[in-house]
């Protein structure tokens, strides 16, 4: 998978978990299902680290479709994707608020699996 072009900063790194397909976010040290855990890169050096993490995640068969997404960061420090596509990917279908991240379905693997 070729590396997508770097978006404007600040940016976060997201992907889909290989096993389950769930959207996951790079925290700086691990992949988390929680959007709020995403590490926000504000400069080129930090963005390059996200790109490295993407390549490492793909190579380690942990995630698929990993790429950087530009975000707006509000006063409370919450990062939200600027583009509506990535916003929907981060939150869940706008027509089913009971599904996706917005519904609190945060477990990659439910207990027992």
């Amino acid at each position, binding site marked *: *998978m070729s590396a997508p072009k770097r978006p404007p900063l600040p940016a976060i790194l997201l992907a*889909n978990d*290989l*096993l*389950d*397909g*769930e*959207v996951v976010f790079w925290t700086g040290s691990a992949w988390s299902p929680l959007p709020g855990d995403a590490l926000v890169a504000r400069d080129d050096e930090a963005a390059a680290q996200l790109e490295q993490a993407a390549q490492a995640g*793909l190579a380690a*068969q942990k995630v*698929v*479709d990993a790429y950087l997404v530009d975000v707006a960061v509000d006063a409370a420090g919450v990062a939200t994707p*600027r*583009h*509506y*596509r990535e916003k*929907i*990917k981060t939150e*869940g*279908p*706008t*027509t*089913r608020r009971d*599904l*996706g991240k917005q519904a609190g379905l945060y477990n990659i693997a439910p207990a027992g*699996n």
Partner: protein
Amino acid sequence: MYRYDEFDARFVRERVAQFRAQVARRLDGSLTEDEFKPLRLKNGVYLQLHAYMLRIAVPYGTLSSRQLRQLALIGEKFDRGYGHFTTRTNMQFNWPRLRDVPEILDLLADVEMHCIQTSGNCIRNVTADHFAGIAANEVEDPRPTAELVRQWSSLHPEFDYLPRKFKIAVTGDARDRAVVKAHDIGLRILRSKDGEVGYEVMVGGGLGRTPMIAKTIRDFLPKKDLLAYLEAILRVYNLEGRRDNKYKARVKILVHEIGAEEFARQVEEEFAKLDGPSIAADAQEVARIAAYFAPPAYETLPARSLAFEAAKNENRAFATWASVNLFPHRVPGYAAATISLKAIGEAPGDITSDQMRAVADLAERYSFDEMRITHAQNVVLPYVKKDDLFAVWEGLVAAGLATANAGLITDIIACPGLDFCSLATARSIPIAQALAHRFGDEKRQLDIGELNIKISGCINACGHHHVGHIGILGLEKSGQESYQITLGGDATETAAIGERLGPGLAADDVPDAIERIVNVYLARRTSGETFIEAVRRLGLEPFKTAFQEKTHAAA
């Protein structure tokens, strides 16, 4: 309906085992994503926005109760309690986990189903008229042909890596309900002057980025020559179709570039070289397949059902549903009932596991255990006694499935759009929902009459917008969703591609724009004239003027 023989059953089981091993090798790192992707796609597994998606083939849209119950179980156990019927009459689950897919495939194999060739550059699920075997003027049930083509095309070694995907549809009726002219190959069963049954062969139709209406390359093909002729078409396409540019790789581009006449010439030349009898299916096998589609054990009934007439007189809601959602049956005393999956405000084509079970129960009890999925994302109970219609309707009411809007303005086709699909450029479902709310009033819908709105969330046109009477295409414009409106499309035997009315609109402006278009029709229609007839008579201009008034008002 068709039942697997021992070879079919073994073939599907072996394929499940093969995919299970492929998933295991993906998970242990032996296969990279680039290596695995074509393998998963050949088994119907996509990666979408929020999760994987599994697309399950429903060949020519025919399902048994047992199969629908199994889909209900899969939806409940491995998904989020619902499924989605597509315009290719398949079922999609939007939330399965990759690790569960082999187990899901085993459950599907238990009921003679699979996901093979629901994706990838191969011959896809063959579709057919959802009123096959029912319509009075049908020459012949198209499903034995569709099943024959399905068997011939499954893992056909020569056609497993085509330049691009390839879709085939069959109708047995001059009145086309299977959109055959928007397919790579459309087959129409017809009778020659001397009474022989054969096919009109149409090639090079398709929607997507470059919409085209199929061209007839053979007016009459004897039945026995079907597979050899299909092989000749696919061979010409496989050799001559472009592989350098995926946007120009469909057979429609080849037919367009060299012309239908030259394409036909090449096909005929190839066909003449082929050893037809060695390609044609064995006559016994053809008869075996056809026998599965023999009519069910109908009772001899009077054409008029007193119970049905009485129920309509007593219950206005039932009478409305019956006037809108029933299709006349060739057998006296029976009707085909359309179950609308377009309840006002719901996502078109979505059905919950509980609803699947309710429909399965009704089909088992009242429709010879069979149902059809339509390309318009609805379900049909094909063989209901008129005497039983009220009981069926009551069952549908209890399941929230008795919406009386088949063929009306709120019976909207919509792809999943950006709420689910990673290819989408805009959302489709919210537009469908907003329009359903706007036009949901029963009296108003009935007054407007037959009107097809079709919505796609990207140029790939899964929502068939090009052939909608009103088509809506969702795109991205400067980081915002923008919707182009087309008018005058037609999905039937008089197929036509709709024309754009003007610049794209913001989502919030779409319902008003559609209302202005509809109002032109209401103001200018003649007695009994449908929307599409009025568009053809009046031309685009009055609608364009009304549409652009809206656009200017919004600017």
